[in-house]
């Protein structure tokens, strides 16, 4: 009897397991999406003047959207914007759910898309994303490298938003102790940077950089600074026999072994090293300025300049890009016209709009005409009275363009694994070969 009972229990558990495993795959058929669709339908159908938007940061992109609403309302008094705060991870699962179930009505009219994921979604769910090439938006007014993220097969799918131009941030007071200035770090190579970094470490005990262990933000930044990427123009992986990548791995390893860069475990720890004065600088997308400024007591102690360049690599520059996002218009057919017109008159056509959002959110535009605005040229107390925003806008225009590729996240994870092993002492060529094999395998469906 007990045996029968035990067997029954096992069966029950096995069945519940299968349900779990199955639900992961077939979430597309769940009712969740439909329920949301009906509630959202109700709001949008009531007024054809309402747009729903998904984005994630109240201090940044949500704020920008709300300001854009005010700008558009001047000409269209009936217009209303319904901004739903949706974390990036949720946007991805919701978009996947809606697209696989074929019921696009649960999608908003506009959503914010990370540039690195843009190609993947356009390729995977083309039916869910509107082609806005001929919507009247002048894409030439945006930085070229930035616009390239949302272009697939010559068609535009996104309106570029925030800037991810890379800056090298430095603690001027620490540099001074060691006898350096920010100018010493301008237009330098990595060799020179590491050399000065060692000196500063010896004199002040502070490393110049910190990074998340096993993450490869810095690797991707260095790659793009030379116009390279993990894929070629045709989307084939170029991880093996990629001289730039090998050089980058060399530089990274040197940074870690010399102690100029310390590795931490997660994002909060990384921000902690900046705010608690553990390190004397950082290199990241210019959106990092927001986190740096959260330590109000460090006002006036920071300076910014361009990043170091790779040595002995063709096409190497002192400029790169990390992160950033673009607005995507969904193809749910409800308000596509209104959505593109709204974007055209705000994010893609209003300098005063960018002048409003810059001072309070630090949202740097990729909209080039805005860069010439006076607001950008105003000196910033926190950064030693320098006009850093026009400086960064200038950097943004010089960033080399590269192809992120559809399989960006696969390649990134594979290189991440290789990076951990290489830093631990494994042979770079073999590790990169393994990484390329992994990516190639994952690309062959």
């Amino acid at each position, binding site marked *: 009897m007990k045996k029968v009972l035990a067997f029954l229990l096992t069966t029950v558990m096995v069945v519940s397991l299968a*349900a779990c495993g199955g639900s992961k795959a077939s979430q*597309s058929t769940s009712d969740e999406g439909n329920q949301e669709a009906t509630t959202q339908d109700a709001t949008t159908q009531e007024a054809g003047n309402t747009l729903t938007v998904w984005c994630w940061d109240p201090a940044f992109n949500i704020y920008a959207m709300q300001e854009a609403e005010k700008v558009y309302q001047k000409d269209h008094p009936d217009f209303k914007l319904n901004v739903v705060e949706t974390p990036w991870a949720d946007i991805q699962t919701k978009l996947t759910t809606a697209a696989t179930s074929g019921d696009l009505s649960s999608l908003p009219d506009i959503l914010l898309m990370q540039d690195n994921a843009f190609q993947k979604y356009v390729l995977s769910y083309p039916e869910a994303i509107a082609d806005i090439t001929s919507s009247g938006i002048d894409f030439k007014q945006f930085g070229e490298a930035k616009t390239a993220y949302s272009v697939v097969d010559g068609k535009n799918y996104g309106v570029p938003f925030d800037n991810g131009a890379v800056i090298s941030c430095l603690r001027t007071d620490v540099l001074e102790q060691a006898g350096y200035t920010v100018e010493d770090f301008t237009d330098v190579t990595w060799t020179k940077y590491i050399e000065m970094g060692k000196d500063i470490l010896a004199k002040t005990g502070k490393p110049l950089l910190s990074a998340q*262990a096993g993450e490869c933000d810095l690797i991707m930044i260095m790659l793009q600074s030379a116009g390279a990427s993990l894929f070629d123009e045709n989307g084939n992986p170029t991880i093996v026999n990629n001289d730039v990548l090998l050089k980058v791995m060399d530089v990274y390893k040197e940074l870690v072994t010399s102690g100029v860069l310390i590795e931490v475990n997660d994002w909060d*720890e990384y921000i902690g090293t900046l705010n608690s004065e553990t390190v004397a600088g950082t290199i990241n997308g210019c959106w990092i300025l927001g986190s740096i400024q959260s330590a109000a007591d460090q006002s006036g102690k920071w300076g910014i300049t361009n990043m170091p360049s790779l040595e002995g690599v063709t096409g190497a520059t002192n400029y790169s890009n990390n992160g950033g996002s673009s607005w995507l218009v969904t193809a749910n057919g409800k308000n596509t016209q209104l959505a593109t017109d709204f974007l055209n008159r705000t994010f893609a056509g209003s300098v005063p709009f960018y002048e409003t959002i810059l001072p309070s959110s630090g949202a740097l535009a990729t909209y080039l005409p805005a860069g010439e605005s006076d607001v950008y040229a105003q000196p910033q107390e926190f950064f030693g009275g320098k006009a850093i925003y026009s400086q960064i806008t200038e950097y943004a225009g010089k960033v080399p363009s590269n192809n992120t590729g559809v399989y960006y996240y696969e390649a990134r994870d594979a290189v991440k*694994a290789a990076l951990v092993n290489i830093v631990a002492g494994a042979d770079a060529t073999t590790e990169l070969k*393994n990484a390329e094999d992994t990516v190639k395998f*994952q690309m062959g*469906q």
Partner: protein
Amino acid sequence: MNQSKKKMKLDRRHNLVGWAFLTPAVILIVIMSFIPMVKALLLSFQTGIGNKLKWAGTLNYVRMFQDTVFMQALKNNFVYLIIQVPIMLVFALVLASMLNNKNLRFKGLFRTAIFLPCATSLVSYAIIFRSLFAVDGFINMILIKLGILETGYNFLVNPTSARIVVILALIWRWTGYNMVFYLSGLQNIEYSVYEAAKIDGASVFQSFWRITVPLLKPTILLTAIMSTNGTLQLFDESVNLTKGGPANATLTMSHYIYNTSFKYVPNFGYSAAMSYLILILVAVLAFIQLKVGDKRD
């Protein structure tokens, strides 16, 4: 004659009432579990990006055995299974028999304290463990204060120490849960049995090994199967504690399935096939455990 007819009617009525109570639950289970299961099975025989699926036969099932990352994840799951489950179950058993002692004071307090980890959210405990083992975290601070380490050791960067941290976290989280099963099993063992053993001169260890363990065998079997099942489906710890790193050393199968569905270019057919492999593995392991563990008839 008449009486038996009446009885049959009554039986039937009882049956009907029973079914009426069961129906809502059955309908819900069929819609929420069985239909998705069948759909997932069909999906596992298809391949393609996003919505563009086509039939591919057993391609996905062959493919996963050539996938180095998935094989690594499978290996990781078995490392957890082989090392963590036995340690945890022995630990739970010892704790349970200690707490079953009649003369122990504050029993309720101890039981609650040991069961409490089980009531914490999977995500939050994983994040707390991550910060405990950070370079400037609590564990490193203690090790430095005690003079064992000079500077903080980055536990989550080394593959071996990262796995040990995951195993420690799992033991902390699940020992109390299994202990409760043993405690309830122990209530069925007459205390007089222990007293008799004591009079006969059995040591504490002997009465544990000769009385507690054999009499608890069905419960031990149950917890072993449940732990196996849980370990093979491990997800939260891999995602939140170590993010699958360093170099995929702590990545679990469920985490990889999530990646292939939502992080990478979506390949739901392949994900469904991998989910079914977990199902098959659990079924096989449970069957073996039943065969090995239950030798009474």
